[in-house]
């Protein structure tokens, strides 16, 4: 590197050196990645369609039934056809997208929060604390996920009703049982997905801890909490963001899988997983019931994966040295 502070150099060098911050640089590199851009645009469209679209539809757009119009092929009034109960397939895909994306985001945030906190603490303190915390993760890893979720769903199901009763006894109208299943789903998926995140963050922090700037922080008298959250966490953010974009599709797949088994979202609320299941049951009579949700789901997964790949390349500082 040059030495612009050696008096003789003109200030033009400062202009060059000012350059771009890591994030701006990452954005520039991401913009060159066509696939990631297409993926990102598609995700934005999907979010717009699922969350803003319903405002232009009637309230019962995904439950309204026309029983004489069962399994009507696409075309006419029903662009994507109807399902076996005569409900508009497009409306159900929109609502399903809402649920699937929400599960994807909320469960990812849950796993992100637990994973980053857990991993950072484990990596920063190291030694026996680290060993203990990582063994806990190992043990949780070894539990079969499906059984864990089934147990959680079965045993915690009544808990929602109990909470309602508890609130009612205190004269409150607060009711949770309607959303209880969704909440459980978030918890169940989040509780499983944070394990990998914790491992990734812990590895990053472990190598960061040896960096001199962390030692400099200590020698400047910074409290541990501040060192962890202000200096460590931003430094692990790169890999974490990338892993997050890969977690979202994984979580959506899990939700589809659970709903497919009848453990996740409960009818009549649709999710993409449920729609695909319904479609798969009537594959021969009404293939559109399987094809359209399937296409949406696949495209969403591809998009998230492309964005994740793009972000990984963009945030890698080595790619900036050209």
């Amino acid at each position, binding site marked *: *590197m*040059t*030495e*612009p*502070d*050696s008096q003789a150099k003109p*200030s033009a060098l*400062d202009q060059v*050196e*000012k*350059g771009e*911050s*890591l994030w701006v640089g990452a954005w520039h590199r991401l913009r060159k990645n066509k696939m990631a851009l297409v993926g990102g645009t598609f995700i934005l469209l999907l979010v717009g369609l699922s969350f803003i679209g319903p405002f232009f539809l009637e309230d019962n757009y995904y439950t309204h039934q026309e029983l004489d119009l069962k399994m009507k092929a696409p075309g006419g009034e029903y662009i994507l056809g109807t399902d076996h109960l005569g409900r508009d397939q497009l409306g159900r895909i929109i609502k399903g997208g809402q649920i699937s994306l929400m599960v994807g985001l909320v469960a990812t945030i849950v796993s992100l929060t637990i994973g980053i906190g857990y991993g950072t603490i484990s990596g920063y303190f190291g*030694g026996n604390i680290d060993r203990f915390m990582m063994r806990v993760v190992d043990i949780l890893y070894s539990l079969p996920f499906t059984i864990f979720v089934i147990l959680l769903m079965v045993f915690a199901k009544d808990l929602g009703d109990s909470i309602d009763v508890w609130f009612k006894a205190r004269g409150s109208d607060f009711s949770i049982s309607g959303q209880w299943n969704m909440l459980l789903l978030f918890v169940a998926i989040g509780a499983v997905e944070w394990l990998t995140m914790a491992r990734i963050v812990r590895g990053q922090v472990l190598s960061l801890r040896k*960096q*001199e*700037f962390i*030692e*400099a*922080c*200590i*020698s*400047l*008298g*910074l*409290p541990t909490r*501040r060192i962890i959250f*202000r*200096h460590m966490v*931003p*430094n692990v*953010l790169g890999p974490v963001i990338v892993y997050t974009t890969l977690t979202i599709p994984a979580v959506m797949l899990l939700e589809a899988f659970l709903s497919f088994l009848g453990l996740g979202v409960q009818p009549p609320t649709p999710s993409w997983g449920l729609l695909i299941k319904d479609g798969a049951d009537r594959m021969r009579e009404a293939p559109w019931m399987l094809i359209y949700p399937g296409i949406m789901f696949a495209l969403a997964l591809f998009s998230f994966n492309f964005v994740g790949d793009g972000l990984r390349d963009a945030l890698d500082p080595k790619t900036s040295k050209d």
Partner: protein
Amino acid sequence: MPLLEVNDLTTHFHTRNGVVRAVDGVSFHLNQGETLGIVGESGSGKSVTCMSMLGLIPQPPGRIERGTAIFDGTDLLNCTPLELQSIRGRRIAMIFQDPMTSLNPYLRVEDQLIEPLLIHRLANKTSARQQALAMLDAVGIQDAASRIRGYPHEFSGGMRQRVMIAMALITKPDLLIADEPTTALDVTVQAQIMELIRKEQKELGTSVILITHDLGVVSGFCDRINVMYGGKIVESGATKDIFYNPQHPYNRALQNSIPALQAKGKELYTIPGMPPDMSKPIPGCSFAPRCEHATELCNSEPPELQSLGQAHPTACLRVQRENLKP
């Protein structure tokens, strides 16, 4: 009363391969406004000495076995972590060897500069920003007003070390510990950085402990010098005396191994042998195996750092008892 008085500081590392006696009974003092150089080769315990005082030794495996370090009436080795935290950065600041890794790459320089002020509640955000700007200007960063919004990777090595110095001095500490501040920099920048530290020291009246293995750096910079070898101080005295009247054979050997212009063409002197394995107990003088003057006695009786009629204290039995001259 000296600003800092270290007495019998002993830091050991308890590793799987045995106890490493990194610092073994080190005592020295530092007066207000004084500059003390700690010289020694790699592994002689000079950094560990200073890190022990600031509580920066990873424990375990490290352990401060005994000793005191009285800084302005407070024993740094026996105060609570919170007390130490309030001293670090505010009254004692430290500069590290490698400026490339000493700054957080994800935070703007400004945010890192104002951090010590905010943490120790010495200023609010607005005035901290102003002080940071003034400090950055003072350490010779051109166009500080716009550079302060930049990220560390937009600064060169020399400039980053300037930022580190600004960060260390922004709280106007009583003591600055510079741990090989110029080792990672090229020679022209080295001189600038040393000049900068001296200038800031004069302005703020800060005491400085300079840790280095570069005799050239200490000779022009320090008031007094401690020469360390094998976790012990083997010679201590005014800079002039250390250079013109070396006592300990190690110090003499060090002086002889400096490349000099008048010795052009001759082979450069090197000290034979290797630094001692600190994980094994050494019964006598730790330098004895490499010393050309060593006797039986040197291998069995540990020398004490004291002056028995010499110009300044030295830890060599033969110098003390036989007035050995090279």
